[in-house]
């Protein structure tokens, strides 16, 4: 028999208590991975919207949200005139309402925008995308109950439906693509867009565009997509929120483990004393308690992985959420959650292990 056998025996004889401790950790892991996965997926989808076959994004400096960024559409033409720029596409982001649907993402774009080329056309075609005719994502067409050739009410206006397109991105698939001039008019942003997405010409470098913007348009900023993702405040807030929510869940899981281990120690004070009489050092007693805690957390972590996988892929399978939920979990997130779980195990067992190691065996044997 080894120390691990003793640890296993201790856990096995109080199955319910062990299960409660493991459940606390499982919920912590599952919450963290689910929240991080969901919000990470949302950020990734928004990043995809910005990328749109481009490498850079130009936006107004010092705005907290791209919805508030105002960039003159004329800047796109100026950029396209630069040899280092292959294409420059203005995009106006907005949120619009329709009867029965209070929030619909709206993309004001030009007919040449890559989004319309990438999508799979289910009805109509890009030729009709002009004036006051919009193109709907497949899901948007579903909930707006609209078809190509018909009309829909959006905001204060009525628009024709030029087509329905299936987009891979959930936000785009549930959104409305509006000709840029019509969108500017609807949102009182004449001559403006939110961002300009820039594709670099072959043989040129991103820094050339950045330098040109810094030199000629100091009100604006040009960033490559990855840099933008890292620095954009909204993304950072979402990511931090995800980790904070997950961290809180872990805190509760940690308390659950501490409680389990305290009960475990208090429930066998005499046994621990006998172990000391048999020659267990304080370190060995502490290792036994830490071992139990780690094992509980290992069980909890595995269960948490399974639970988060079920939650994420279960939600994705719900018809109402289809397209909006694209879980994005990498090894880094899974490893972080596992590391946090191990840390929780160690922190949660710290007081019980200290208590058990400091027990006076002679007094403990008199304990009733």
């Amino acid at each position, binding site marked *: 028999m080894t120390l691990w056998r003793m640890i296993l025996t201790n856990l096995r004889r109080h199955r319910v208590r062990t299960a409660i401790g493991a459940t606390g950790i499982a919920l912590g892991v599952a919450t963290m991975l689910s929240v991080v996965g969901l919000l990470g997926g949302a950020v990734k989808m928004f990043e995809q919207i910005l990328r749109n076959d481009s490498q850079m994004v130009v936006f107004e400096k010092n705005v907290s949200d791209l919805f508030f960024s105002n960039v003159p559409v004329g800047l796109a033409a100026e950029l396209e005139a630069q040899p280092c720029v292959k294409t420059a596409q203005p995009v106006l982001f907005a949120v619009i309402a329709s009867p029965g649907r209070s929030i619909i993402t709206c993309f004001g774009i030009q007919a040449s925008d890559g989004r319309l080329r990438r999508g799979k056309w289910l009805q109509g075609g890009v030729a009709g995308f002009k004036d006051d005719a919009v193109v709907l994502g497949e899901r948007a067409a579903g909930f707006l109950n609209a078809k190509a050739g018909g009309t829909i009410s959006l905001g204060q206006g009525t628009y024709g439906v030029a087509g329905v397109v299936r987009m891979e991105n959930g936000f785009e698939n549930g959104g409305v693509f509006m000709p840029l001039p019509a969108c500017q008019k609807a949102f009182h942003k004449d001559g403006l867009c939110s961002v300009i997405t820039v594709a670099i010409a072959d043989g040129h470098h991103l820094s050339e565009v950045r330098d040109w913007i810094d030199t000629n348009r100091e009100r604006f900023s040009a960033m490559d997509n990855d840099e933008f993702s890292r620095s954009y405040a909204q993304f950072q807030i979402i990511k931090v929120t995800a980790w904070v929510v997950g961290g809180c869940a872990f805190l509760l899981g940690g308390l659950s483990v501490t409680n389990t281990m305290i009960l475990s120690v208090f429930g066998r004070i*005499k046994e621990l004393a006998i172990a000391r009489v048999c020659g267990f050092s304080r370190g060995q007693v502490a290792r036994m308690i830490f071992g139990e805690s780690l094992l509980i957390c290992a069980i909890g972590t595995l269960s948490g992985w399974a639970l988060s996988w079920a939650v994420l892929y279960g939600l994705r399978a719900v018809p109402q959420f289809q397209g909006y939920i694209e879980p994005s979990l990498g090894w880094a997130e899974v490893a972080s959650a596992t590391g946090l779980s191990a840390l929780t195990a160690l922190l949660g067992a710290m007081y019980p292990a200290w208590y058990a190691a400091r027990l006076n065996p002679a007094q403990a*044997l008199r304990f009733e």
Partner: protein
Amino acid sequence: MNDFSNHMMTQVMVRDVWKSFDGGRIEVLKGVSLEVGQGEVVALCGTSGCGKSTLLNVISGLEEVDRGMVRVAGRDVVEESTRVDLLRRHIGYVFQLHHLMPDLTLAENCLVPIIAAGGHRQEGLARLHELAEATCVTHRLGQRVRELSGGERQRGALVRSLMNDPELLLCDEPTGALDERNRETVFELLLNLVRSRGRTMIMATHDLGLAGRCDRRVRMRDGTIEGEMN
């Protein structure tokens, strides 16, 4: 007195030991001194509360003394590392209650000292079978403690205390919780195992009949040693 004590070194030396509890309000040992030679079998006699168990606890290092000196096998029982090492390799302890872990088998319980000492499993098993045979519990080794009778449990506790072949066995009323028949059997086993191996034993007991079969009988009263009994 048996043959060993005549020429062997001092196994336990207790000098002017004081021990109190509850912040000094309850004085349990008041200047106790005792010397036990290697191979001696000594009975500590006295009424309940006279300090017998506490004296065994300070000898084993389970209780720290307030003042005075305790030396086992020539080593001062002061440092934690010394105490742990003595309990692992030099001291076996048998209590009035068996204190076996109820959810482990008897064999697993007996192997706990081997785990503590980091001993070799095979050697531990060999020793376990040897001792189990000597105490007639071989057929019970695979059973959980809760399935054993009182006598079997106490014999199991005896096996556990001897697993690391200790030089010194401390017994605190080892037969106190047993009926008459089991009391006699367990004590006889204990005595045989100790004497046949030339080990030292200090046993706290109320039972003057059992004490009479030891080499020496030390009478304790109110935290002091009154003297030797005839």
